[in-house]
């Protein structure tokens, strides 16, 4: 088991393996997302209260879920990199951040668009999930800004790791604070996503979409980590030999 992890943590090994694994995530992911899109848009019955607008849930919830999952992945791999000094872990954190920011943006944008017909406004400060998503977007920006401001890669890795860990502790607290705050907000109509109990025919596409998103995210992440690894190791022998062998082949 340790030998496997040790091998996985070796950049050249990871680089090759990841290339082969990506399709195994991408293809099932695409299939699931395609099914979930079709089922969510055309098969699931319209919601009693919200009509067809509720279908936005099928992209909004998975995006929000992924945005939080990515933050955790970022924080955990940054922590692993910091504590056990595994370079690959830092590469994963660096690669995950922009993806997480994109998903957070998507959650916010779809949430805002959903809000327009529901609340009559493009933004509702009273919705705790939207507001804490917004704060999480700022956390991502801070992380990426800190990384960008430090030239030395190793230093940037460690500094942003500290930030990611401190932020991770705060994420649940932020959610709790915002929820408490908006429960005091007079007259806010909280959107109960999907209604109190979701019908099975409504739930399946949602679960499928979440899983599909996760698979696609994994494929994207693997691709980005490969590039990170390649860049960080650009002066090493294995990269040189890799490039030379590719040239020789072509």
């Amino acid at each position, binding site marked *: 088991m340790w030998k496997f992890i040790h091998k996985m943590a070796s950049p050249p090994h990871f680089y090759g393996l990841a290339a082969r694994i990506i399709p195994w995530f991408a293809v099932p992911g695409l299939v699931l997302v395609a099914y979930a*899109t079709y089922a969510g*848009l*055309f098969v699931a019955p*319209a919601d009693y209260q919200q*009509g*067809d*607008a509720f*279908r*936005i849930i099928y*992209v*909004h919830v998975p*995006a929000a879920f992924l945005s939080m999952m990515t933050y955790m992945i970022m924080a955990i791999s940054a922590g692993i990199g910091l504590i056990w000094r595994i370079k690959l872990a830092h590469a994963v954190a660096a690669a995950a951040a*922009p*993806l997480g920011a*994109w*998903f957070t*943006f*998507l959650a916010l*944008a*779809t949430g805002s*668009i*959903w809000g*327009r*017909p529901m609340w009559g406004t493009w933004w509702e400060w009273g919705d705790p999930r939207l507001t804490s998503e917004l704060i999480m977007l700022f956390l991502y920006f801070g992380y990426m800004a800190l990384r960008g401001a430090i030239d030395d890669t190793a230093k940037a890795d460690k500094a942003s790791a500290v930030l990611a860990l401190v932020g991770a502790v705060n994420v649940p607290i932020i959610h709790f604070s915002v929820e408490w705050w908006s429960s005091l907000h007079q007259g806010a109509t909280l959107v109960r996503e999907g209604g109190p109990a979701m019908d099975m025919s409504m739930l399946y596409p949602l679960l499928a979409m979440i899983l599909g998103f996760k698979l*696609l995210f994994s494929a*994207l992440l693997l*691709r*980005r980590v*490969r*590039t990170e690894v*390649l*860049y960080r190791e*650009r002066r090493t022998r294995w*990269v*040189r030999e890799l*490039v*030379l062998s*590719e*040239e020789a082949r072509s």
Partner: protein
Amino acid sequence: MEALSMGVYGPYVWACFIMTAMVFVICEWRARVHHRDVYSDIAERVRALGEKQ
């Protein structure tokens, strides 16, 4: 056509789904381009080093 209109919420629902698709496409495309750029930079330098010897 009726299916596409989504009651009255057509523009909202489709905007969301199209935006989602675009985000995935953009992420994939940028990831590939970034990889290609990094790779070609390295290949260029390796080639230059090789010529020097």
